[in-house]
């Protein structure tokens, strides 16, 4: 049986960040990185841009072979893990071979969640999680006139925009009343929706597909209100969920994802998890959450990597803060932290400035004079500084009014003073 000191399962942001952290401290011991894909590492986040043609699929790779050679890393493609063997510090690959490890990181990410809608299973539809998905979608695009995007989250909206720009007539079907419900309130979402509508995207909010049927080479969706929609392309983007089924019988505790502590350690010795597959403590809640966003995957990967390499500078995970950035039709929406509804009401202040004419929106939520959330549409502020203000629980004190008036400059000054 092949053996490696560090085994990293997965090859996207959490895995690469962990690898980077391991190699900063331990330049020698053997590292093996496994990916189920047949390509170099890439980010799922770039895929909508591969579909639209903005990104050249040959140039999206996050590392090249030279990097792995330089850092003495064995990079294995087409190596999906079928199961983790309990008590043996080993995994079994899809081809039946086994790899033993001293320490393993699970950074296997998430997979599209398919809704149980009658007729969907028998249909030819697209998802967008892997590079091969993006290439298939891009390849199909020239023949598509009408498309249905099921789901108004980030992936669905990115795809809808790119389809619309390619001249496709797009309908987005979303059960929630608004798009991007996880990050923005109704008012901000409405501003985003308006831009889509103005660009010819049909948004069917608060509606759900109850059945699908094949229609020639395409499909027909029937909505809850009885409306029928025909399309020659169906993209299912109703969310993603951590992949944990291969852990059955391994003894690794899972909830929605793989449960980890503040060092990204699972309950099983020598096994860590990070990124979209992990369920770790939240910053605003005592419960463990799946915070499936790229910057958090980077953060969690680094913490796991440092712990695995026994780096004396190991950090403790501060907890997941919901955040995201979203560009659409040349406009920007940014969300960092939580809305007032997610907080104990005492000491909470919320302030909102809306300029509909300029499609500009800014909302700031404070808790006990500390930043808890900031949300903007075409509003200038530095999300990284805001995230850090939240994590450091910086008391805005006398700067509170200045912050509400001018969050970008005030936060920059606070940053420059506080983390010099």
């Amino acid at each position, binding site marked *: 049986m092949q053996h490696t000191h560090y085994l990293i399962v997965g090859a996207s*942001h959490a895995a*690469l*960040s962990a690898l*980077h952290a391991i190699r*900063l401290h331990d330049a020698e011991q053997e590292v093996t990185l496994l990916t189920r894909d047949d390509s170099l590492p890439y*980010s*799922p*986040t*770039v895929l909508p*841009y591969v579909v639209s043609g*903005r*990104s050249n699929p040959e*140039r*999206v*790779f*996050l590392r090249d072979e030279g990097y792995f050679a330089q850092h003495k890393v064995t990079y294995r493609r087409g190596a999906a893990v079928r199961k983790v063997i309990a008590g043996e510090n080993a995994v079994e690959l899809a081809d039946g071979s086994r790899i033993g490890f001293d320490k393993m990181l699970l950074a296997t990410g998430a997979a599209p969640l398919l809704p149980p809608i009658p007729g969907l299973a028998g249909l030819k539809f697209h998802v967008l999680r892997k590079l091969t998905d993006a290439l298939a979608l891009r390849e199909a695009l020239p023949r598509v006139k009408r498309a249905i995007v099921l789901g108004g989250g980030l992936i669905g909206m990115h795809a809808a925009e790119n389809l619309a720009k390619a001249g496709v007539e797009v309908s987005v079907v979303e059960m929630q009343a608004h798009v991007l419900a996880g990050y923005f309130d109704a008012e901000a979402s409405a501003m985003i929706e308006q831009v889509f509508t103005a660009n010819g995207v049909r948004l069917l909010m608060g509606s759900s597909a109850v059945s699908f049927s094949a229609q020639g080479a395409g499909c027909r969706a029937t909505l809850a209100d009885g409306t029928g929609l025909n399309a020659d392309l169906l993209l299912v983007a109703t969310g993603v969920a951590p992949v944990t089924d291969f852990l059955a019988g391994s003894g690794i505790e899972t909830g929605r994802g793989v449960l980890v502590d503040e060092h990204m350690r699972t309950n099983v010795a020598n096994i860590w998890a990070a990124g979209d597959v992990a369920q770790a403590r939240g910053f605003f809640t005592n419960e463990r959450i799946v915070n499936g966003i*790229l*910057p958090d995957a*980077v953060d969690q990967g*680094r913490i796991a990597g440092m712990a695995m390499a026994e780096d004396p500078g190991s950090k403790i995970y501060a907890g997941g803060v919901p*955040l995201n*950035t*979203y*560009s659409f039709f*040349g406009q*920007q929406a*940014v969300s*960092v932290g939580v809305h007032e509804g997610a907080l104990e009401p005492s000491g909470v202040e919320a302030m909102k400035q809306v300029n509909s004419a300029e499609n500009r929106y800014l909302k700031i939520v404070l808790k006990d004079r500390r930043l808890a959330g900031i949300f903007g549409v*075409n509003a*200038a502020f*530095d*999300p*990284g*500084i805001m*995230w*850090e203000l939240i994590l450091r629980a910086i008391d805005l004190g006398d700067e509170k009014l200045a912050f509400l008036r001018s969050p*970008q*400059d*005030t*936060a*920059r*000054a*606070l*940053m*420059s*003073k506080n*983390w010099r």
Partner: protein
Amino acid sequence: MGAAYETINFKPEACDGCNDCMDACAQAKAQSDDHLQSRIQIVPSGEGFELALCRQCGDPECVLNCPAAALAKNAGSGVIDWDGSKCVNCLLCTVGCAYGGIAYDSASSHVIKCDMCAGAPACVKACTTGALKHITAGRIYNEVGNLEDLFVPGLSGCQGCNTELIMRHTLRRIGPDVVVATPPGCIPGMGSVGYNGLTGTKVPVFHPLLTNTASMLAGVRRFYKRNGRDVMAVALAGDGGTADVGFQSLSGAAERGEEILYICVDNEGYMNTGMQRSGCTPYGAWTSTTPVGERAHGKTQDAKNLPLLMMMHNCAYVATASTAFMEDLYDKLERAIQAAKTGFAYLHIYSPCTTGWRYPSDQNIEVARKAVETNFVLLWEFNPGDGLRLTHPVEKARPIDEYLEVLGKYRHLDADQVAHIERSLANNLARIRGFVAARGSASV
């Protein structure tokens, strides 16, 4: 070994908010008058000003956060390069950056960041207040890092001591054709002469008596010269071995113009033997032989100005240097090496002692910097042709308290003692300025 890079340093206390840097940047990078286009952002903060600018981080979070491989740390320049042909405008880099160093610019419809203007930052050139400084010392480390380290790994200096830095850097620069003398003191104490019959250097090294360092080196140099070989004779000595016990042979060698490079690493006392006072220990300082108690309050005499004494020997080259100002130190080392080929070269390097001066071990370079910025020590150089020149004149010296208060050896000082120190520093400054004023006339 990682490379060292250039950086832009910001001193908020010197910034007056004139925004000339932002004008210059917006012009240089976007041919625009719009400050929003500037990669450097000065922001008001209370009475003063603060800064948002790409730090060109060594371990950049923006790069790890980029899903499109559009950001990369350039191993050559150290700049984090942005590739517009790969960028997808997702703004995730702005989430990774906790410094506001990469931000969306609506005028250009993508993120913008500082690219250091290919090594000549426009903002720094435009800054007239000294708030922005282009730190290029990284070049030195890269250049010297490529030279062979002539000491063994693992010298056992005290934690935070800068002497190891001085030793390794100077010998790297001097090169292998050298014989090194390390008289008793911290430098042999930390292992440079070696243990159990093995030397701590990769070049010939010997351990003279405190009294005869310069005379032995004079003989070594003359021997090799007579045999037709250009071998440098270098002393790495402490201030005690130089100023007190070894002064007779030093003075003689300097007066005879022996071709020696004599480096005095001045930590203001006999630190490795238990922190006794030396002729270089300043007034008021605690040492184990100038104790602090009911009646005694540290040293009661001023330090002798050893580099000035050496200047009065009319040596081929004399200079003082500090490890807080490495570019300056390197310039002087270069000139001292050249001068030692034809005459006596004396380099006096200040070396704050973490153990004997009693301050946190991570503060060494900061203490060295404060010594210069308060005019406690003056950085100058001398050669017989040009006279004395201040190489780092400090126009507005910081209050001496800023230096004294960080050092445990001055904790007991009363107001009279501080006043004495201030008088001594003023006298010293006036004396040195007198030599500066006499440049080109009397000193030849």
